[in-house]
């Protein structure tokens, strides 16, 4: 199993999807074992590929530029050749590891969480399709396959968000998610086609090479990059496209963990990472990226502070994290972004799965109805705490190292650095808040608290594994760890070979950020444990700010108003125009005119024989005259 055989990876879960869709109802256990088996196979194959990768790296060292393998898909001879192919390099490897591992964890977890669901088989089918598409997305060596997979993960996300289809809110959220990201995809597609128009190829490496060789005009390149970013922003829920992600929490929680935390939403980050050389060629490109990231980070941190739905809080933290990755990419530190992506996948999936356990046990997801679950669900509590503190950025957890990496890369950019620092205590505060409100204090809803219990091993084992990874995965930033794992040059070198990057731990930054995080945690502890009256009092004081945050800066309302008032009005006007102007006037009009002309002309039918005879004779005379004049 070498890297060039990696095309097998997406085919496994794709086959599982086909099998489950066609045979699902007839299989024992609705075929969940096929789906889990497929992702298990993918995981094993991924490990083999990683081994092959380390071998290649050991042999070729820095000269290793990835392995490609492609087949022809369709061809218009002499004009167009579309190929489907894979490209495996370091970035791919990281993504593969994340997708296959988190995918496996989530699928196992779902065995417990989704048990008894009325569309259990369908759930597993779609999630298999999702994994297949996601693998194809990260393996793609060309824009066509990338877009192909990009859309497919979008539709899987749509289907899974809307899984509880009897809920109007779930249906609406699914629709919103798909349409919002689709708007970004319009940009992506245009960008892909523009780049093809200039270079004649869809191959990502070739496009980048052509751009670096200056074969693409500046205007086209700028337009392409901006449009490309639109696509990435849509998928990665960056401002102003971020509105869909919190709503997407209507889906089953394992889905939130897999799609809306660990994998699909980072597709945008992945795309930007891949296209970073292109973006950096454009004046203002990195700055745009940075601005988007910072804005997103700031907005999400504030909004997360006031949300009461446990999943929504985590969703805002996800947006926050994605924003951070964009920030890192904006300052040209893809390695930092990838490290963050890598570790984030584990602790965010852990958080969601933990939240899922809570929801599964209590059937409540509003923190105002939870509380005191620590004793009832110790495993969930501990693992959730690890995840939350990692997200907050407490030292020596995965999140700390990754965040620190980004902060170090920001050192040259004071404004961004300060802005990110400001959000640190906010993040720490709301993560601590959700932890406290869920697991500590008095149960606010005794009835559900009564029934709460730890889930089956299917659910707890993935939690424990993910928690373990959250504890240790951050240490890959150290070159020594990387070397110990078989990579020659440490994690920075793995992630971005042509921009070898060695991790430097900046003690001052580390201590500073830790202090800020501690401040946030302490504030949260003070507000929600020590002095529970504080939130209420400060709420009274800061009512307008709270409302602004709780209403998500009124962006959702604005969008809704634009859709209802503007878009649909235009649609109705066009429909009215079509019916009344085009059809009733343009088409029926001539028909009525014909009828009226007929009405007018019928009066020549006098019914009197001599009139008709006269008409005939006049006709004959006229024809004769015509004949004469022609003869003359």
């Amino acid at each position, binding site marked *: 199993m070498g890297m060039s055989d990696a095309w097998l990876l997406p085919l496994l879960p794709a086959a599982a999807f086909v099998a489950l869709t066609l045979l699902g109802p007839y299989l024992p256990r609705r075929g969940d074992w096929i789906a889990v088996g497929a992702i298990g196979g993918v995981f094993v194959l991924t490990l083999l590929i990683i081994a092959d990768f380390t071998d290649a790296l050991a042999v070729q060292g820095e000269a290793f530029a990835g392995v490609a393998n492609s087949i022809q898909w369709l061809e218009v001879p002499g004009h167009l050749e579309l190929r489907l192919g894979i490209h495996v390099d370091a970035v791919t490897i990281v993504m593969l590891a994340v997708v296959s591992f988190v995918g496996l964890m989530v699928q196992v977890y779902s065995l417990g969480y989704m048990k008894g669901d009325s569309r259990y088989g369908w759930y597993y089918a779609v999630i298999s399709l999702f994994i297949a598409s996601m693998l194809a997305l990260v393996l793609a060596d060309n824009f066509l396959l990338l877009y192909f997979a990009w859309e497919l993960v979008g539709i899987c996300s749509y289907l899974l968000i809307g899984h509880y289809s009897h809920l109007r809110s779930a249906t609406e959220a699914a629709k919103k998610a798909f349409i919002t990201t689709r708007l970004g995809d319009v940009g992506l597609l245009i960008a892909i086609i523009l780049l093809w128009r200039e270079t004649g190829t869809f191959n990502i490496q070739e496009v980048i090479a052509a751009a670096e060789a200056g074969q693409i005009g500046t205007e086209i390149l700028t337009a392409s990059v901006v449009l490309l970013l639109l696509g990435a922003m849509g998928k990665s829920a960056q401002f102003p496209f971020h509105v869909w992600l919190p709503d997407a929490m209507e889906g089953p929680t394992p889905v939130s963990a897999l799609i809306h935390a660990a994998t699909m939403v980072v597709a945008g980050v992945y795309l930007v990472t891949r296209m970073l050389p292109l973006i950096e060629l454009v004046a203002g490109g990195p700055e745009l990226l940075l601005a988007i990231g910072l804005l997103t980070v700031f907005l999400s941190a504030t909004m997360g502070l006031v949300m009461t739905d446990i999943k929504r809080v985590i969703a805002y933290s996800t947006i926050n994290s994605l924003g951070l990755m964009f920030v890192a990419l904006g300052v040209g530190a893809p390695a930092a972004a990838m490290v963050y992506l890598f570790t984030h996948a584990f602790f965010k999936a852990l958080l969601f799965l933990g939240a899922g356990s809570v929801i599964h046990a209590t059937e409540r997801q509003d923190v105002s109805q939870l509380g005191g679950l620590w004793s009832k669900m110790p495993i969930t509590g501990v693992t959730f705490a690890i995840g939350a503190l990692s997200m907050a950025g407490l030292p020596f957890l995965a999140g700390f190292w990754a965040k620190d990496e980004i902060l170090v890369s920001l050192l040259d950019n004071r404004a961004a650095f300060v802005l990110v620092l400001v959000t640190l205590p906010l993040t720490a505060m709301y993560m601590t808040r959700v932890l406290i409100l869920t697991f500590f204090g008095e149960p606010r809803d005794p009835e559900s608290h009564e029934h709460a219990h730890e889930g089956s091993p299917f659910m707890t084992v993935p939690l424990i594994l993910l928690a373990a990874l959250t504890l240790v995965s951050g240490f890959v930033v150290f070159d020594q760890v990387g070397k110990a794992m078989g990579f020659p040059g440490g994690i920075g070198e793995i992630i971005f070979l042509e921009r070898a990057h060695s991790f430097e731990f900046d003690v001052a930054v580390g201590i500073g950020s830790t202090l800020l995080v501690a401040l946030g945690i302490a504030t949260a502890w003070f507000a929600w444990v020590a002095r529970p009256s504080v939130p209420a009092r400060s709420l009274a004081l800061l009512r307008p700010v709270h409302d602004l945050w709780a209403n998500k800066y009124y962006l959702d309302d604005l969008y809704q108003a634009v859709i209802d008032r503007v878009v649909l009005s235009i649609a109705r006007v066009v429909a009215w125009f079509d019916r009344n102007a085009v059809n009733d006037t343009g088409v029926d009009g001539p028909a009525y005119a014909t009828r009226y002309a007929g009405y007018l002309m019928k009066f020549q039918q006098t019914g009197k024989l001599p009139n008709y005879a*006269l008409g005939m*004779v*006049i006709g004959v005379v006229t024809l004769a005259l015509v004949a004469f004049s022609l003869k003359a």
Partner: protein
Amino acid sequence: MTVAQIIFYLIAALAVGGALGVVLARNAVYAALFLILALLAVAGVYILLGSEFLALVQVLIYAGAITVLLLFALMLTRTTDVAESMTGAQWPLAVVVSMLLGGLLIVTVTTSDWPGDADGTITRILFEDLGAALFTQWAVPFEIASLVLFVALVGAIVIAREEEGE
């Protein structure tokens, strides 16, 4: 001017005069009588064209039978004694149109090149030849003509018959 020419112009004048009478006479019966005159003149024209048989048929059937039939019809449809206009409202237009048509026809006739003898030599057709042709070469059309007459006769009877209760 030969005798034949003189006779022709005489007959032509009679024919045109009769025709004028047919279309202009204020009394319907006079019009019918003028028609007889015109038809007899046409019979004369046939003789001038060397076709005595046709002239004979013309006199017998047209001037005799058909005109009598028309007179009968006039008699049967006489409505009132109130004098009413015999001419329709569109007569001025009709004058123009028919004169135009006549003019056009005459212009055509005079300007065209016609085959045949320039000195007015005609072929006279004998009864025997015509009879032989009619019953050999033209036998089928002849039979069909008789069928047409027969059908017309039956149709006329059916249409004109008084129905029960009418």
